[in-house]
């Protein structure tokens, strides 16, 4: 067996990069990108603010205010780049880590915390933002996205669907079945795989003998590996993939080659299974630093810009923290509200029994 190391491919020609880790702009004839300094500054702002939000959410978890938090640290460019490539009518199916994409869809960050604080299953309206609720079950949303895309195709809509998942999920049957269905029906869906190298403690090598983007070829649609820490490349490649889908050319797999710089979630300690030197290597490829370097070196932004983004981040963090701490506790009786869209006599019966049960405590002087 000849094993192809993922890292080798990351430096090969099958790797779309438009901004080097040093902040140098590259051109790629297949993925041209015309972008103004103002637009790059806007991307920088997105990247910096979602990172600041992520830091605050992690702190809130450490202080006992959130049950758990899934950090996006290190994956900001993959999410902002792809998120900013979306048109308003496109539909997004996220995992539980797509805080950056949620940001791009206009969801107030504090809304994301409702799930992690445990006051509800997710506080935003998926229809209004075209951003589905977080899916915790690994890979399951790839099928929902495919079916949704098949429905859009049937309706003659000129929109596309993008679905996020990870390197670990790529081994799930659901994901492989989604590839088959999307290919068979030529569904307008972009599969956006964030390869952050680790499925909790299991490295990507355990999931696949070949680079993950190459799997698409076996299913009969294009796959490309993009520098997932390069916001410009993620933007350009996702735009092209969405256009491909909208034009009726079917599914597209993007493997955003990135790195989970934090833990899988706040319940995880990555120092138990990976070397510190690996993290140091990836810090040199930081998704935000390279944009900063590009803007500074080109004279497109000065320190006042970076300072203003930083203070905006601090304000955002303070707002998010205040919102988190003031979230109302849900009422126990609410558990009976939503098991069925059309209601159910069994649920009504249980609700009545529960009300009676609660009233019993009230008679005893409250509970």
């Amino acid at each position, binding site marked *: 067996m000849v094993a192809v190391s993922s890292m080798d491919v990351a430096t090969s020609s099958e790797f779309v990069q438009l901004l080097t880790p040093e902040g140098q702009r590259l051109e790629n004839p297949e993925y041209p990108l015309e972008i103004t300094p103002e637009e790059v500054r806007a991307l920088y702002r997105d990247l910096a603010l979602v990172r600041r939000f992520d830091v605050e959410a992690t702190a809130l978890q450490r202080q006992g205010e959130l049950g758990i938090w899934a950090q996006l640290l290190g994956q900001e460019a993959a999410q902002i780049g792809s998120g900013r490539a979306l048109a308003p009518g496109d539909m997004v199916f996220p995992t539980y880590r797509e805080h950056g994409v949620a940001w791009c869809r206009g969801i107030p960050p504090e809304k994301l915390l409702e799930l992690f604080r445990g006051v*509800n*299953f*997710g*506080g935003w*309206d*998926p*229809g209004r933002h075209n951003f*589905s*609720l977080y899916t915790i*079950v690994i890979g*399951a949303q*790839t*099928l*929902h*996205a*495919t*079916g*949704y*895309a*098949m*429905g*859009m195709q*049937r*309706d003659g809509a000129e929109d596309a669907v993008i679905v996020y998942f990870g390197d670990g999920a790529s081994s799930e*049957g*659901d994901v492989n*079945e*989604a590839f*088959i*269905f999307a290919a*068979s*029906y030529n569904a307008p869906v972009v599969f956006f795989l964030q390869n952050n190298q680790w499925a909790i403690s299991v490295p990507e090598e355990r999931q696949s003998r070949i680079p993950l983007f190459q799997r698409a070829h076996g299913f009969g649609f294009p796959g490309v590996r993009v520098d997932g820490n390069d916001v410009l490349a993620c933007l350009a490649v996702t735009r092209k993939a969405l256009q491909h889908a909208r034009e009726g050319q079917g599914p597209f797999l993007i493997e955003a080659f990135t790195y989970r710089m934090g833990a899988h979630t706040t319940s995880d300690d990555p120092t138990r299974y990976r070397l510190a030197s690996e993290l140091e290597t990836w810090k040199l490829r930081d998704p935000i630093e390279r944009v900063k370097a590009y803007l500074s070196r080109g004279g497109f932004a000065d320190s006042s810009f970076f300072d203003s983004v930083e203070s905006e981040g601090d304000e955002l963090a303070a707002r998010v923290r205040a919102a988190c701490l003031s979230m109302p506790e849900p009422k126990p009786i609410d558990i009976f*509200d*939503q*098991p*069925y*869209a*059309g209601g*159910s*006599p*069994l*649920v009504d019966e249980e609700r009545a029994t529960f009300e009676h049960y609660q009233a019993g405590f009230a008679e005893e002087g409250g509970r």
Partner: protein
Amino acid sequence: MAVITYRQALHDTLRSELIRDPNVFLMGEEIGVFEGSYKITAGLLTEFGPERVRDTPIAEEGFVGAAIGAAMLGLRPVVEIMTINFSILAMDQIVNHAAKIHAMFGGQSKVPMVIRTPGGGGQQLAATHSQNIEVWYAHVPGLKVVVPATPADAKGLLAASIRDDDPVMFIENLALYNTKGNVPDGDYVTEIGKAAVTKEGTDITIVSYSRMAAVALDVAKRLQDDEGVSAEVVDLRSLRPLDRATIVNSVKKTGRAVVLEEDWLSYGVGAEIAATIQEGAFDYLDAPVRRVAAAEVPLPYAKPLELAALPDATALVKVIHETLDATRFRR
């Protein structure tokens, strides 16, 4: 009113729902060109085309998951899973997604889909192709589970399921496809969650569903004619929601109850019925509630062994006699 088969009733209802609502479409393995393993979808591909009658790759988790996505968009997918045994491959999408999305999305996304699938033994299809696992789904809040026993209910409940805003497991039975019965003409919808008293009686209640409800009705008629025993038959029609009131009211009248079920005894539908009766009609019972169910073995392939493992009319009659005799009922 016309006399047609259970199969024909299903077919005609699918067809009329496809005509009635352009958002309804069918999806499943071999349902198009091959017209379904049990020919329920015969002719529908020709009439409605491949957009609305979709042959799928062999991947149950795949097409159930895709149907969920389509339902979230507002379509009304009617999925055929070739037999209930294969639904096990789609268990995560059914139980973790179809059943939960409405609640977990704060009521903001509905999943109006139907999964049609036949269960049942007696066809010599052996252990992996003959199971009655409807109770697995009946256990799950968020799902509805219907189990029609007659051609009329096949029609009325299928129409109701397709028009329902929640995911419905519509469980057919292989041995019922060729059975015939009166079916009302025109638009006919049966409310989900209502049991039917298919024969009134005063001496004993037989609770059953699907194919066994037909067996129960035959037995009840025979006992009436041959022995003068007045048995009441309750056909559940829906396992979730379960019509507890109809069961309890019947037992309050008769004081005796037997459950006839094709699934396995332990943790089966009959256990839920027995518990429902003791909670709702304990003081009315003259005898313990009895259950007649399948032997707790993987269903055999050999015909005599398969027959030995499945519940039947003889076993039901024996248990009814024992229940009556235990209460010194004169027959």
